[in-house]
């Protein structure tokens, strides 16, 4: 066929053993190892990020599972509470008196009101509900655990600090600059800034010594535009200037060196300490009162059952997930009742009965496309058709369930078809062979065998539906539900994921930890559902 030349074997041997060959080989293996390393790094990154996600949720969320409360000793004064109509009693005063009895007495009414703010604003209603339920306590002393308000809850749990640094990094830098210029003096237990003060005649006339002090300081740090700079001067700094001017009136219009005292935080800074100041959320009186309560052992930190049994509230310390869980339950119930029968029926038809023509192809393509449509589009559909055209009530679990069922339908259809496909044809043939009709084969033989797979797919579909947020937001299913009493399938409701969204938007610190806690509850449900699905799959898995 063609000329085949002989190959020089000796040359070949050299090629494979040469130094160049060895080097090439090393490079090739190095590239191989690099690829492997990239793979490990990638997996490490993915798992690491997941870990960070879970860790940050757990760290911020765990405190919300506990709630700081005060065991308040309350005298249910029959004067204030009418036994015939306990609900209308003046519980606000009862709570106030009970609290003030335990703490150092404040003077003004304003201070009294500030102390009462240690407790949750809901406190009167908590007491009211208890007394209404137990009218025999009127005239008695009772001890009720009353939740504290959010700032104190966070304080007691250590989430926010009692004292914060008084000076930030920039302010410390200003002081440092002045120190470097050598104008910081310390004597007689106080720290001073030895500054050149220009005694502007006009200002001396008008007695505006504050401006003189500020201007002099400004000249040393001309680039600083922040008016907070002037807090560096003590309150009596202008006074010092005034005294100097009074002592030597002839200095007006001239520049003279005056030692101006610095304010307390900078004094501490000069002494090498870190200046701390009380967290501005608390007043000193409140802190004293709170410490007194702690010293008396009245402050407890029990498990926060209210998180699960209370409905939503404006106050984070009283907010709970009861409304959200109930709403999600109703919506998922509707979703299940709609999507499972319809999904199984459709899947059975497509898999077992439908002729293979273009129409059924179209249906299949449709189902696959629907599975990939963004969830927010389903929300738009719900808004336009269910709310707009059919006029169903906004924010109702029925509508939420209907929208969710449209989203879950493709999942269930696909899972059911897979389960049906897995049943071997021999079962069908055997049943047909004894004279069963196609329907009977399906109902009596194939469907029961496919049931575990269908159940697994259903549970997974429900779990996905539980986590859906966007479509529920669009149909308004994140109403503020302060009480679970009037909930129904047509009443406004909220759901677990939309509640998380609402709480995430709230600024209070307490809602941050509650949002994480709510997420942990949601994830708990999801994990449980998936475990059930996996257990089902293992238990009923059959190897045909």
């Amino acid at each position, binding site marked *: 066929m063609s000329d085949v030349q002989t190959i020089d074997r000796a040359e070949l041997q050299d090629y494979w053993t040469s130094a160049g060959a060895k080097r*090439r080989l090393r490079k090739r293996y190095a590239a191989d190892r690099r690829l492997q390393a990239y793979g490990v790094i990638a997996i490490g990154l993915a798992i690491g990020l997941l870990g960070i996600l879970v860790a940050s949720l757990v760290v911020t969320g765990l405190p919300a599972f506990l709630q700081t409360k005060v065991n308040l000793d309350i005298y249910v004064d029959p004067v204030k509470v009418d036994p015939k109509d306990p609900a209308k009693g003046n519980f606000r005063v009862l709570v106030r008196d009970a609290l003030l009895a335990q703490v150092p007495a404040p003077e003004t009414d304003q201070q009294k009101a500030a102390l009462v703010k240690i407790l949750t604003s809901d406190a009167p209603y908590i007491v009211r509900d208890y007394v209404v339920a137990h009218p025999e306590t009127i005239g008695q002393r009772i001890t009720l655990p009353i939740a504290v308000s959010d700032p104190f809850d966070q304080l007691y749990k250590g989430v926010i600090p009692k004292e914060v640094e008084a000076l930030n990094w920039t302010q410390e830098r200003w002081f440092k600059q002045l120190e470097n210029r050598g104008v910081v003096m310390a004597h007689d237990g106080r720290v001073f800034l030895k500054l050149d003060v220009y005694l502007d005649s006009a200002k001396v006339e008008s007695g505006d010594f504050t401006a003189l002090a500020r201007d002099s300081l400004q000249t040393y740090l001309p680039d600083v535009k922040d008016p907070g700079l002037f807090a560096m001067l003590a309150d009596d700094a202008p006074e010092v200037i005034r005294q100097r001017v009074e002592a030597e009136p002839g200095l007006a219009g001239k520049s003279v060196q005056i030692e101006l005292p610095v304010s307390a935080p900078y004094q501490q800074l000069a002494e090498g300490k870190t200046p701390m100041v009380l967290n501005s959320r608390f007043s000193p009186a409140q802190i004293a009162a709170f410490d007194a309560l702690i010293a008396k052992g009245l402050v407890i930190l029990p498990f926060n059952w209210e998180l699960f049994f209370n409905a939503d509230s404006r106050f984070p310390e009283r907010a709970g997930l009861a409304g959200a869980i109930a709403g999600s339950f109703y919506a998922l119930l509707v979703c299940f009742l709609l999507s499972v029968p319809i999904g199984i029926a459709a899947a059975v038809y497509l898999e077992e009965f439908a002729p293979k023509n273009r129409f059924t192809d179209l249906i299949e393509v449709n189902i696959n496309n629907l599975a990939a449509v963004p969830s927010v589009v389903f929300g738009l559909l719900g808004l336009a058709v269910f709310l707009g055209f059919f006029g169903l009530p906004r924010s109702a679990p029925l509508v939420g369930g209907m929208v969710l069922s449209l989203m879950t339908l493709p999942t269930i259809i696909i899972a059911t078809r897979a389960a049906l496909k897995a049943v071997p044809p021999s079962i069908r043939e055997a049943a047909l062979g004894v004279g069963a009709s196609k329907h009977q084969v399906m109902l009596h033989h194939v469907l029961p065998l496919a049931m575990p797979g269908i159940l697994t797919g259903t549970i997974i579909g429900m779990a996905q539906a539980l986590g859906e947020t966007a479509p529920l937001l669009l149909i308004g299913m994140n109403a503020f539900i302060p009480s679970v009493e009037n909930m129904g399938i047509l009443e406004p409701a909220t759901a677990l994921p939309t509640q998380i969204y609402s709480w995430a938007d709230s600024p209070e610190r307490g809602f941050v930890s509650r949002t994480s806690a709510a997420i942990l509850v949601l994830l708990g449900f999801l994990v449980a559902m998936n475990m059930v699905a996996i257990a089902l799959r293992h238990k009923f898995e059959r190897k045909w």
Partner: protein
Amino acid sequence: MEAKVEARPVVKVEAPAPAWEDARAAAEQHEIKMTARDVNVYYGDKQALFDVSLDILDRSVTAFIGPSGCGKSTFLRCLNRMNDVIEGCRVTGAITLDGEDIYAPWVDPVQLRARVGMVFQKPNPFPKSIFENVAYGPRIHGMIKSKADAEEIVVTSLTKAGLFDEVKDRLHESGTGLSGGQQQRLCIARAISVNPEVILMDEPCSALDPIATARIEALMEELKENYCIIIVTHSMQQAARVSQRTAFFHLGKLVEVDDTTKIFTNPKDTRTQDYITGRFG
């Protein structure tokens, strides 16, 4: 000597007359290229090969025959350490190439497989162009430094494989668009492109039609001038047609190895005789 057979006639196979009449003289003309001594292969706990020992001569075709599952493919794969790729596979014993143990720890399987090439049962060209298929091996082994190098190697390999004339106008079309026989010749060209010394062929014609098979067998005849070729085949007729030496495997053991003419006319072992007369398959 007539074989002792009852009712069935002895199958007399006409082997193509080799260039030399005397087998011993033939052995002296060919060097021993590869040897195996006491090779055992285990897949997990199951043992697939038992104490296989044989010599393979250079510049000739050696055929491995035997019924399904007898271990001939397994042994073939030991010769280029392709069994390393299979998890749980263990090889003991010594296999040498030009006198050096290929399983020695300092031997790199990557280089070994350039010296011992392989063609598979089902043609498996890469989903690349014909050109790139053939250039693949030389590229990764650093044999190609310029476009001219690549072209030369590709043209030479395709010519040696007898495929060049058919594909010279469509070198940059996909290799998977060729017919079965052409694909197999492409795979042979690919194997040749790195200048191997040994070419292993695992049932190379079993997926091809008779015409393509004939072409490949003719190719083998040419290639054996320059390469040591080892072929596994389940067709005794093919073994008789193309090979100079034949080894018969059965149930993981090497039963008999000898010149092809001897094996098919005068086997020493009854098992060999039973196999070639069709008593079992």
